[in-house]
Structures are given as structure tokens and as C-alpha cells.
């Protein structure tokens, strides 16, 4: 084996310098880490969805596959892979085939800028949070592709509802993000996380860092109401952006079968499914980075560090996923007009107020 690697390395190094090879290999390894994470987390999230919904409805959930049914997601995935991959005869084939991949690429690309720990961030971009927001637009395009390509009226209506909803809710989400960016003075997610070092009282939800110069010291507690509003807006908006209940009008089972992915089966459906769950974690972890300290420990220096950072980050992200599942199985669905009214008449005015208030306070106290 070593000889093969040696030969391969020498062959490649004839064309590229060794530092370029190291760069390419590290880039590939770095890129693979979130992919592995998404796949493992997908299994946990499927089981979580089944078990939590069962507990909320006073059922047991899957119990037969493995101890307490914990192998059920693996069985489900094996079943999904064996299913026939159908394509409707009237479908627009290239678009129909492209859609699930665009959806998954959009969700996966967002993970590139997420700081999992001080030791791991796929790409430390100066415009990290802006990049994550922009990758959400790929998901919108994929929904349109699926809705159009399927040649099915339910898919079509689902896609149009979904896109109208997502592009509307991008505005309050961006306003909530800007509130934090104004205070932090940076769009780099690693910097935003670093600012919140030193325990729970330095989190942006509670006004931001108290010990650093330029953040108003302990007087920045006046930001707490602004941040609470921004956090609430971000959380509600992120539910809508991932098409989760109570904002699931695009896939409302009682009206539209399954919305934009009605016609998809097998592996293509699995990609949509994985993309939705990856997005759920991504929006949750962005909320935790912006407001709840990202990978920073809530206890200050205790239990903090590169390895514990992963633990806190994943824990915070998963608690948002838990909240999303909890809400899904507790609340009924909004009507389409209610969804739009909440966005344009409630969230956006509050979001604009939060940005204005944060700007004024930031200038006043810094």
C-alpha cells in the first residue's frame, strides 16, 4: 500500500508543487468532515423525530429494530435505497434530476462556514454569516426546480408557496442577523464566537461581551431586550426557512400530498430529506453562534477548549433541532395568508426596530 501511495504522490508531484498537494488534500479532508457529520447526524435526527413525536403523543415509537428501536433509521434508509427510482413520464427530466442535488449542495455548502470548534472551521470567511444566508438561495432554486420538473400540480403549488414563504422570511432573518453583526462589528462567525468567550453572561443574547473594550462594558445589558427580539425573530424565521411546522404550508399533507417532493422516491427523496435535516441543524447552529456563544462553554473557562468546543457546538445545535421537532408535533399549521401576515406585518417591523435600536445603542455605549 505504501508503495502505491509513494508512486501516486510522485506522479502528482510532477505536475504540482508539494505544498499545493498538501493544500488540496487538507481541503478535501476538511470538506469531508461536515459531510460525515451530516450523515451521522441525519440518522440521529430521524430517530429523534420518531421517538420525540411518539413521546409527545404518549406512544412508544419504533420498538422492534434493535434495543428500544434505535436501529430503526438504518432500516428506514436501507428500505429507501431499495425503492424504485421513478420519474413521471411528463417530467422535465434534466431539471427533475438536478433538483435534489442542488438542494443538498445548498445545505451542505452552508456547513463550510460553521465554526464547529476553535480547532475546526471549514473556511474562515470574512463574510461568513452572509455566505450562509446566500447559500440558502440554492435551496430556493432547488425547490423551484423540483416543483417545475415534476409536472405535478401539487408539486407546483407546493413549490410556489415554499418559495414565496422562503424569500419573504429571508428578510426578517437577515434583519435579526444584522442586529448581531452591528454589535459584533464582524461577519466572521469565528470572530463572533470569540467575542462571546468567558461564560453565559457574555453571550450576545445577554448583551454581548462585558470585559472587552468597545462593547460598553456592563452597560451593554441595555441590549438584552433588543437581542431577545432579534433571537425570537431569527428562530421563527428559521422555522419558516426550513419549511417546518407551523410554517409547513408548502408540504401540507392534508392539502398538497407532500408539496414539491411529491413525485420523488428512493435516493432522490433521501437527498431532499437529508437536505432538510441538514438545514435544520445549520439554522440552529447559526442561532447558537450568533446569540448563544457558539462553541464557547457556558461556564467560562471550565470545560472549554478545542475538543469540548465540538461538544458544546453540537449540543447547542441539537437542542435547536429538538425544539424544532417539539414544535412540529405540538402546534397546528398556519394558513398561507397568516404565514405572510406574520412575516410582513409582525416580524419585519420588529426586525427593523431591532436593527435601528441596536445601531443607536451601539453608537451610544461604545
Amino acid at each position, binding site marked *: 500500500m505504501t508503495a502505491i501511495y509513494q508512486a501516486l504522490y510522485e506522479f502528482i508531484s510532477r*505536475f*504540482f508543487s508539494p505544498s499545493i498537494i498538501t493544500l488540496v488534500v*487538507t481541503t478535501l479532508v476538511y470538506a469531508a468532515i461536515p459531510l460525515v457529520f451530516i450523515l451521522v447526524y441525519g440518522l440521529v435526527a430521524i430517530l429523534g423525530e420518531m421517538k420525540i413525536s411518539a413521546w409527545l403523543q404518549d406512544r412508544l415509537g419504533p420498538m422492534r429494530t434493535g434495543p428500544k428501536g434505535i436501529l430503526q433509521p438504518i432500516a428506514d434508509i436501507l428500505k429507501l435505497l431499495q425503492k424504485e427510482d421513478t420519474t413521471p413520464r411528463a417530467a422535465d427530466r434534466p431539471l427533475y434530476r438536478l433538483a435534489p442535488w442542488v438542494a443538498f449542495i445548498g445545505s451542505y455548502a452552508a456547513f463550510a462556514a460553521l465554526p464547529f470548534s476553535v480547532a475546526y472551521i471549514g473556511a474562515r470567511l*470574512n463574510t461568513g454569516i452572509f455566505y450562509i444566508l446566500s447559500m440558502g438561495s440554492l435551496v430556493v*432554486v432547488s425547490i423551484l426546480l423540483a*416543483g417545475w420538473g415534476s409536472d405535478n400540480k401539487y408539486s407546483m403549488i407546493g413549490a*410556489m408557496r415554499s*418559495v414565496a414563504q422562503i424569500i419573504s422570511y429571508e428578510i426578517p432573518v437577515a434583519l435579526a442577523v444584522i442586529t448581531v453583526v452591528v454589535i459584533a462589528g464582524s*461577519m466572521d462567525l469565528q470572530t463572533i464566537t470569540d467575542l462571546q468567550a468567558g461564560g453565559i453572561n457574555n453571550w450576545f443574547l445577554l448583551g454581548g461581551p462585558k470585559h472587552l473594550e468597545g462593547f460598553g462594558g456592563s452597560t451593554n445589558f441595555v441590549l438584552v431586550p433588543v437581542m431577545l427580539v432579534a433571537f425570537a425573530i431569527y428562530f421563527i424565521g428559521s422555522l419558516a426557512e426550513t419549511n417546518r411546522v407551523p410554517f409547513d404550508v408548502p408540504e401540507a399533507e392534508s392539502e398538497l400530498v407532500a408539496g414539491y417532493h411529491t413525485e420523488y422516491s428512493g435516493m432522490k427523496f433521501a437527498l431532499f430529506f437529508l437536505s432538510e435535516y441538514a438545514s435544520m441543524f445549520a439554522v440552529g447552529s447559526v442561532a447558537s453562534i450568533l446569540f448563544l456563544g457558539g462553541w464557547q462553554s457556558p461556564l467560562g473557562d471550565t470545560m472549554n477548549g478545542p475538543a469540548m468546543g465540538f461538544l458544546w457546538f453540537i449540543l447547542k445545535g441539537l437542542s435547536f433541532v429538538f425544539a424544532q421537532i417539539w414544535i412540529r408535533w405540538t402546534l397546528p399549521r398556519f394558513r398561507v395568508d397568516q404565514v405572510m401576515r406574520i412575516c410582513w406585518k409582525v416580524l419585519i417591523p420588529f426586525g427593523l426596530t431591532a436593527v435601528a435600536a441596536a445601531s443607536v445603542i451601539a453608537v451610544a455605549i461604545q
Partner: protein
Amino acid sequence: MPLFDIFFYLFAAAIVASAAVVCFSRNIVHAAFSLLFTFFGIAGIYVLLAADFLAISQVLIYVGGILVLIVFGVMLTNRVTNIDLRSALKSRIPALVICLALLCLLGSFLVEGHWMKFDQMPWSRSPWNKDAIEQATHAVQGTPREILDHQGSQGTAMALGTLLLTDYLLPFELVSVVLLVALIGAAMIARKETFLLAKHNRPEGSR
């Protein structure tokens, strides 16, 4: 700098190929979706030119906004009202004149522009430049990834923001007024019909 070249040609090929589909496809929906690859390719070129903020704005505004609106418009008119929309060749001579004028304009930029050499670009301190990597490997101890982070360009967001609110404040405000006018106009046009309809359908004796 072979990696830089490879990525440049990849993006350039994607732009040209998808733009050709936009121009020549008779299926208007395929043409619209093919814009996705054009916009992404252009964003990729911006990244290679060290314009990080511009690249992300490109994706956010063109893919997330304009492309979605174009497709949305096509979908609403096409499938819902059963009008078969096809692109066709029309008014060839004006199109030819405009295209030639644009070509001359772009050509003059190409000939007369002050182009930066590769090693003058901000990215020449970047991972794409192997000399810079080797230099940095001596300067900074650590994994290539740490060197990459250390070397990361300063970013253009702050410079752009400062320029927009100082030197280019008037154009910036004018553009926002134009957008506001367009927004109000769109709302007026959209509400007009429902308003008239409501007036027309109002039962006798009400009000």
C-alpha cells in the same frame, strides 16, 4: 499557479456553456435555470479576483433574488394559465446593433484597461500562489490550514461599506430611491385589479 488557472478555466467554461444555453435554448424555463450556473461561475471568478463580498452578494442577489423572480414569473404565467412560453428570434437588427455596440465598449475596456498582473493582485499572497505558501510556511509554524487562515485576505466588506457611505453616497441613495419607486409601482399595479374588482363586485346598497 496552476491551481488558479485550472479554477479560472473551470469557471470560465461553466459561464460560457451555461450562457450559451440561456441564449440558444428554446425552452424558456431551461434558459432561466441555466442562469444559475452563469451566476455561480461569475461569483467564482469574483472569488478568484479576491472580491469576497462581491461574490457573495452576486449569489445572494442574482441567484436568491433575480433568478427566483424570473422563474417564478415564468411559472406563474406558463403552467397556471396554460400559455406556452417559448423564446423566439425577434427584432434582429436592433439586437445586432446593441450587441455590437456593447462588444465595442467591452473591447475598448479590454484594450485600454489598466490590468493588474497576477503577482500584483491581493490574491498573490493567497493559497493559490505556491511561492507565497512556501514563504509563509517558513514565517508561520503550523498546519497548512493555519497558514491559510493567517493569510486570509483582509476582506473587502469594510472598504466597500466605507466607500458607499462616503464617496459614493449620492449614487447609493439614488439607487435606493429608484428601487423604492419600482417597489411602490409594483404594489400599485398589483393592487389595482383587486381594488377595481372589489368595487365592481360590491353588492347594491352596501356602504
